[in-house]
């Protein structure tokens, strides 16, 4: 009886050890890996201003690159979204809060993709979004940024180098962590 109990304890301890080892391996992989592959994207061209709040201009890749060039000097958050995408709707108020908190130190730019202009404008109005947004009707920006999921958030450093790509919705903690690191 005692031998059986000891055997059960040893088996359970081995399982726990395995779980712990698997987790440590995951942590090491997660911390040292580069996350989702970053696209080979480097904005170039003459600088351009960001769109005025409340407008939703149709933008092609060269104009988008010009906006990124024009915003250099501050970190840039680019959020790719769609009005049809539930996680985008959930995430947008967080981005608006982030814009209100970090807007003087970080540039925010939304890019609507796979979307109609009317639907996207209604979406922005419904959610009271006040940071700059554009719409990528041709899909050229989404292709250049290798967007596979909605929403996707990109962080560019102050030199305009793409440093982080986050696929899927971000939590408040994750977003605040990204922004704190960007302005550090």
């Amino acid at each position: 009886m005692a031998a059986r109990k000891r055997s059960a304890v040893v088996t359970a301890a081995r399982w726990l050890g395995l779980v712990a080892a698997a987790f440590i391996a995951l942590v090491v992989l997660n911390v040292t890996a580069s996350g989702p592959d970053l696209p080979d994207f480097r904005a170039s061209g003459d600088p351009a201003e960001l769109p005025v709040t409340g407008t939703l201009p149709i933008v092609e890749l060269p104009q988008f690159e010009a906006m990124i060039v024009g915003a250099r000097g501050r970190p840039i958050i680019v959020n790719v979204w769609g009005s049809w995408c539930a996680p985008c709707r959930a995430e947008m108020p967080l981005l608006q809060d982030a814009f209100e908190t970090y807007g003087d130190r970080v540039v925010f730019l939304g890019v609507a993709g796979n979307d109609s202009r009317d639907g996207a404008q209604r979406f922005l109005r419904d959610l009271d979004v006040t940071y700059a947004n554009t719409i990528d009707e041709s899909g050229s920006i989404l292709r250049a940024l290798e967007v596979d999921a909605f929403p996707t958030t990109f962080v560019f450093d102050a030199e305009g180098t793409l440093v982080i790509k986050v696929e899927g919705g971000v939590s408040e903690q994750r977003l605040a962590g990204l922004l704190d690191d960007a302005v550090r």
Partner: protein
Amino acid sequence: MIDIGLMVSMVLVVAVPVFYERLRPISRAEPSLRFVDAATGAAVAGLVTGRLAALALDDPPSILRFPDLLIIRSGVEFWPGVLVAVVLVAVGAHRGAVDPWWRLGTLVVPSMLAYGIYDVTCVIRGGCYGPASELGLRPAGASSAMVPVGLLMGLVVIFGARLLRRMIDRGTEWPTICLGALAVVAVVRAIGSIWLPRLGDGFTRPHWTSIAVAVVACIALGTVMSIRHRQDEVER
């Protein structure tokens, strides 16, 4: 798209208490009691309640949109969820002619393990980094190493579960165990939230609610222990 980090977290949240249960059965008086059987329904109800509470407070129109309800990552109010789960377990125990404190007490250690594991695995969900420090971890793409506050919170909760297990083995009464667990989790969340990143300058709603629960749980725990102490003195 599938959130791999969240999926791995959830698998570990279930797997670790189940393996722990094989090591140390949760109830010697009722060996057939399984954590998964006893807690899953209440946990799911708690999760749904927490998500609904978050939507009701942040974006009421979203309650009517089912896809929005499923985006757990966008926020779950922790304490309303815990309250509903606790009430469901207690009511279920009462209906089964089992002492609700006893049933809740037997679930305390594996539940704290599950919560601790969820917090520890925040490093693979990318959401628990606090202040910059050379002693911390450097997430992919980040410019500096940061203290993994969530991971430390999870470890403290797991350590708290171990202490409570010892108290159970020494015969501590179930209400003390349950209130002790509540106090440990609430204090860890209240203190940990100071260093977790947030949008805005002030404390967040989860932070305030954890402070309130911590205060209430500590007062209740102190009262229960004081009453027990007096009873012991009278008996002597």
